[in-house]
């Protein structure tokens, strides 16, 4: 029984490690400036995890193989432990784990502990059950006034834009996120009803949109294309199809688009959405 169990543990270990090493199921390609750092940090972490996992499992398999009850005559070793080993082991794991913890803050700090860099392009994101609204400020670089009392889904005023505000004249509200490539983007995340979460796998970025809060986040995308945008926080019955796209455009296409008025913006955005293809999976 000991040998079988030891073998079984080793085979399971091998299979689990293979699943990661084979990279058959892996991150989608990274399209953000910070994505590479996230992937590297993950690689370091998963190697540490993999070594610890394999060492523990192989050790476990080995002791159950080796110390199975084979001879009736002998007894087990009488020992209550070894304090020196215990201390060494504790210090080693503490050093490794705390180093990992500190390394694991770098990308986070670069994005969340700093304000958006100057020259960022700002978009307001307003999530609702079960769709996304993206509010563009237009040529004047100022968002028009919004008020929850003015929200009227049936009149297509999804974000409660105040039409009497002069700043609102050139604003556009669309259902696809369009951002420029290689230019910092700042999103102001809001929700109309319940908590949602903004998730684009390729972006290596996720952030909840919480009603009552306006959460500013920023990142820079470095690859043109069309990517799926998913809701990652349970928001009700149709959570699984609260889907939109993030369209990353070259600077010229982007600046042309954002200077259009609402209707033309909408039409041009739909053209571009059809022009770009999703990545191959």
């Amino acid at each position: 029984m000991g040998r079988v169990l030891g073998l079984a543990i080793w085979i399971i270990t091998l299979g689990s490690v293979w699943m990661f090493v084979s990279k058959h199921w892996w991150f989608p390609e990274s399209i953000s400036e910070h994505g590479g750092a996230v992937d590297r940090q993950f690689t370091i972490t998963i190697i540490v995890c993999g070594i610890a996992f394999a060492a523990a499992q192989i050790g476990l398999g080995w002791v159950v193989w080796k110390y199975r009850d084979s001879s009736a005559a002998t007894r087990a070793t009488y020992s209550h432990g070894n304090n020196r080993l215990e201390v060494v082991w504790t210090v080693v794991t503490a050093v490794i784990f705390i180093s990992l913890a500190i390394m694991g803050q770098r990308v986070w700090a670069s994005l969340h502990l700093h304000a958006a860099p100057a020259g960022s392009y700002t978009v307001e994101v307003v999530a609702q059950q079960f769709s996304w609204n993206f509010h563009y400020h237009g040529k004047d670089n100022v968002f028009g006034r919004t008020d929850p009392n003015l929200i009227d889904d049936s009149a297509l005023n999804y974000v409660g834009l105040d039409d009497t505000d002069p700043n609102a004249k050139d604003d556009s509200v669309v259902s696809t996120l369009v951002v420029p490539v290689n230019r910092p983007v700042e999103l102001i995340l809001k929700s109309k009803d319940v908590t949602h979460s903004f998730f684009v796998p390729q972006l290596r970025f996720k952030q909840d949109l919480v009603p009552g809060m306006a959460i500013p986040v920023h990142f820079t995308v470095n690859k043109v294309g069309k990517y799926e945008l998913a809701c990652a926080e349970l928001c009700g019955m149709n959570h699984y199809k609260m889907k939109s796209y993030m369209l990353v455009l070259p600077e010229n296409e982007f600046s042309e688009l954002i200077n259009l008025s609402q209707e033309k913006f909408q039409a041009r955005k739909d053209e571009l959405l059809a022009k770009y293809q999703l990545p191959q999976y």
Partner: protein
Amino acid sequence: MATVTSTKTAAKPVVGSGWPKPPGKNGSNGNGQGRRFGGRRRFSKETYRITVWILLAAIVMMFAALASSYIILSANPEWQPVRMPGAFMFSTGLILVSSATMTAARRRLQRGQSRKYRGWLLLTLMLGVAFLACQLKGLKQLVGAGVFFSGNPHSSFYYLFAGTHGIHLLGGLTALAYLASRSGKVLIGEASEKRLAATDVVALYWHFMDGLWVCLFLLLWFWK
């Protein structure tokens, strides 16, 4: 490690032959198998104290959760502060006095003055009831001022704090009433010790309820 001293005699069989007799004072109660669990229980003051302290730890955690909620929500821009009703000030005075009378009752009992003990205990009980009545009056004043349970959190917290504290205080009142109902009897020996211990822990609970209310009161009043 493991320096082993071997021994001369073989192990006494343990399984199945009953337990080795414990030595000393407890003795047997006549069934020949060592001391039974049965028979008279020697009373332990520790059990009372440990239990009440553990209970208080749980209560502290619950009110800490509610008070942190209060503090977090008070930072919300939508927070609308509400004026402290006068009756709450008066009730806070009442419960502070009741703590003093409870201490007096305990002192009297320790000195064996059971009649005076009874008097102070009943006074504490009355002050407790008066406190609750006063709390209700305070909530009535809030309703009169158009401040209801529903609506903005600060108004809800008046009702929530007064209500949850009141429910816990009712437990204290029940315990006081129980002590008072037995305070007429003259007790000796273990029964008297027991009463002293019970009074101790009821006093502990009562002071705690007093302190708790003062904290909640100060929070409602000053942390707007």
